């Protein structure tokens, strides 16, 4: 129940990448026939992704991951053009740390963790060159109304490039609807059944930025480094499958989400963090009173339920969530944060077992705490 962290690879994506691991190994930048073969596969992958996003093939830049795509879009823009970077406080660190690094403006979010339009409006002016707002939050699953954001940015920061981190959105939202609202967009293959170590930055023609990886000038000088051919091909296939199944999956996972929430709501002291209406179906974020996330996750793990609470630091320790802090969630609730996330392999049986294990674990933690209190 941790699909928001990463997803199992789709069989069709594995199949698509295999020939490039064991056979077609050439560097697509070469000039011989084997290189041309590899090049063709990269070009086809680019065309496929472009058709799913609704962009031009030349607007797809292959990168190493979602984080790199965000870095290129934000740091690359400000390095090339100067000006101020802006983002909301609940962004993924891949965005937040870039904006902080550039001494940019970090704006407040509302109680659901989506950007507060008034706060965003107040941070916008002619000097702003980069605005980055995530389409779907990785911790809570809250959806940003990008139409509102886009409108605000166009009107009040006319010089800004609007970027969206769509890493968590790709499974749930039709990228064709998102793309017209923004100038650039980051996606990451492993969040939708592709392999780790490959992502893309979709960037509108005419938007120039300073590359963050310099070298041989691949990707039209926007991202150097030998192409990860197998990864790129597998990403394209995974995105194709995700897009083809999206409508069906959204309905199926929505039903699982309802089932999960019904089960969890029977446990005393469980509070939903973000209402259904504004979140993607795949993420159920709850805060549980009188429970510590670290303890809960250990007990869940022991019972073979893999979940998460917030992001982990380099040591592997769970960090208090900056997203919940930005939302104003009280410490006693955020201490018991739990994110259960679902995806293409999640079943009804997974959901039922999760409910049972969470209920048992919460009860156990509270019972021991009560015993310790009595002394």
């Amino acid at each position, binding site marked *: 129940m941790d699909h928001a962290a990463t997803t199992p690879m789709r069989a069709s994506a594995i199949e698509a990448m295999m020939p490039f691991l064991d056979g077609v190994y050439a560097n697509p930048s070469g000039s011989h026939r084997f290189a041309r073969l590899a090049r063709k596969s990269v070009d086809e992958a680019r065309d496929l992704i472009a058709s799913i996003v609704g962009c031009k093939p030349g607007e797809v830049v292959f990168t190493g991951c979602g984080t790199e795509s965000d870095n290129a879009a934000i740091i690359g823009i400000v390095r090339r053009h100067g000006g101020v970077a802006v983002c909301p406080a609940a962004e993924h660190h891949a965005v937040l740390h870039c904006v902080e690094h550039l001494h940019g403006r970090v704006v407040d979010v509302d109680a659901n963790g989506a950007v507060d339009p008034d706060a965003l409006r107040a941070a916008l002016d002619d000097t702003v060159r980069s605005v980055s707002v995530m389409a779907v939050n990785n911790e809570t699953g809250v959806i940003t109304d990008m139409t509102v954001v886009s409108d605000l940015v166009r009107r009040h920061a006319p010089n800004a490039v609007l970027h969206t981190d769509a890493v968590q959105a790709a499974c749930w939202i039709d990228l064709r609807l998102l793309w017209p609202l923004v100038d650039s967009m980051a996606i990451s293959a492993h969040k939708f059944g592709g392999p780790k170590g490959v992502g893309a930055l979709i960037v509108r023609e005419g938007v120039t930025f300073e590359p963050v990886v310099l070298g041989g000038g691949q990707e039209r000088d926007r991202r150097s480094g030998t192409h990860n051919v197998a990864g790129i091909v597998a990403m394209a296939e995974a995105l194709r499958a995700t897009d083809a199944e999206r409508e069906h999956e959204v309905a199926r996972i929505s039903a699982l989400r309802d089932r999960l929430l019904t089960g969890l709501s029977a446990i005393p002291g469980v509070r939903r963090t973000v209402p259904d209406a504004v979140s993607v179906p795949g993420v159920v974020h709850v805060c549980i009173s009188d429970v510590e996330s670290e303890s809960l996750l250990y007990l869940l793990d022991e019972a073979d339920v893999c979940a998460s609470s917030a992001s982990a630091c380099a*040591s*592997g*320790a*769970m960090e208090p969530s900056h997203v919940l802090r930005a939302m104003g969630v009280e410490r006693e609730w955020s201490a018991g944060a739990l994110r259960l996330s679902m995806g293409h392999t999640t079943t009804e049986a997974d959901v039922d077992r999760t409910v049972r294990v969470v209920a048992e674990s919460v009860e156990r*933690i509270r019972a021991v705490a009560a015993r310790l209190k009595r002394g």
Partner: protein
Amino acid sequence: MKVLIAMSGGVDSSVAAALLVEQGHDVVGVTMRLWGGESDTGCCSVSDVDDARRVAQQIGIDHLVFNFTDEFHRNVVEPYVNDHAVGVTPNPCIECNRHLKFDRLHERALVLGFDAVATGHHARVVERDGVFRLARGHDAAKDQSYVVHMLDQRQLSRTMFPVGEMNKADVRAHAERLGLRTAGKPDSQDVCFITTTKDDDGRSGRSAFLSRRIPLHVAEIVDVAGERIGEVEAVEMVTLGQRRGVGGGGGTKRFVVDVDVPGRRVVVGPEAMLLTETELVGQMSWSSFVVFGTVRVQCSAHGEANLATVEPDDGGVVVRWREPQRRISPGQSAVFYDEAGEVVLGGGVVISPRVRPGLEGHTVIDFT
């Protein structure tokens, strides 16, 4: 038994974990993330966590990281800074054991269904007739019973010190035999949250750490006649009994015999002036039951345990030395052993007459 072993990434806890596995226990390793300071070492020492995790992988146990940075800051770092501000010399390792390793971690272990918590300390838990006693480690030179003296019956009954029966040389030899990457790692000596690498201002160590959190004051050094003989950069960092940096030249050895933080004055004098027949000790904890009478008292990690009688006193105990001893800086722990000097009976924190009246709450300093 289901045992949670605290793994610091050092050789002792690595071998302790391996021994538990060899003994057939169901073992899980955990590294506590304690220090989250930003301007200092950044994240906790990630390389130590890496070492602990690699050792755990090698001996085939799960490894977890618990984030206890809030509790560490509240119970160890803040008191450490506050104590310095009032001229008290704290022992943060003891406070970490008291509040983190044997309180917070024990509580967490209970919640998670563990029967015991183990650490790599050189000390022994001995059960006799249903009473748990804390004894010195087998290796006298590495004995750490002093720093874990605060354990009570409830904690001792759930604590294991697997390397307490071993010499340090044997611990290292065992680590080498198993091919553990921590086999040759040097023992840690310093306060873990104080960095030795220089910050952006070129400062490092205790003075840099403290000066970012409290104002440090220049003080004059005077002799016992009140004659000014020099000055120190920070009166907050001077400790009773200290010799270094207060000599002022001349032939006779001079020691700090009084530290007056508010008066910005350090008095130095001959060693004889440091001697005392009694010490006051507060914040007492007892291993099993309250013991008054003849005991041995040890006042530093590897100091001598000297004979004394202990008697109850207002809110603590009085230690009456058999032979006069050097005064102990307030804030240091006094640990009581049986007459043989082998079994811990209890311990507390030395209170000096100067700071005694206001000690209860210490001076509270606003860090912001």
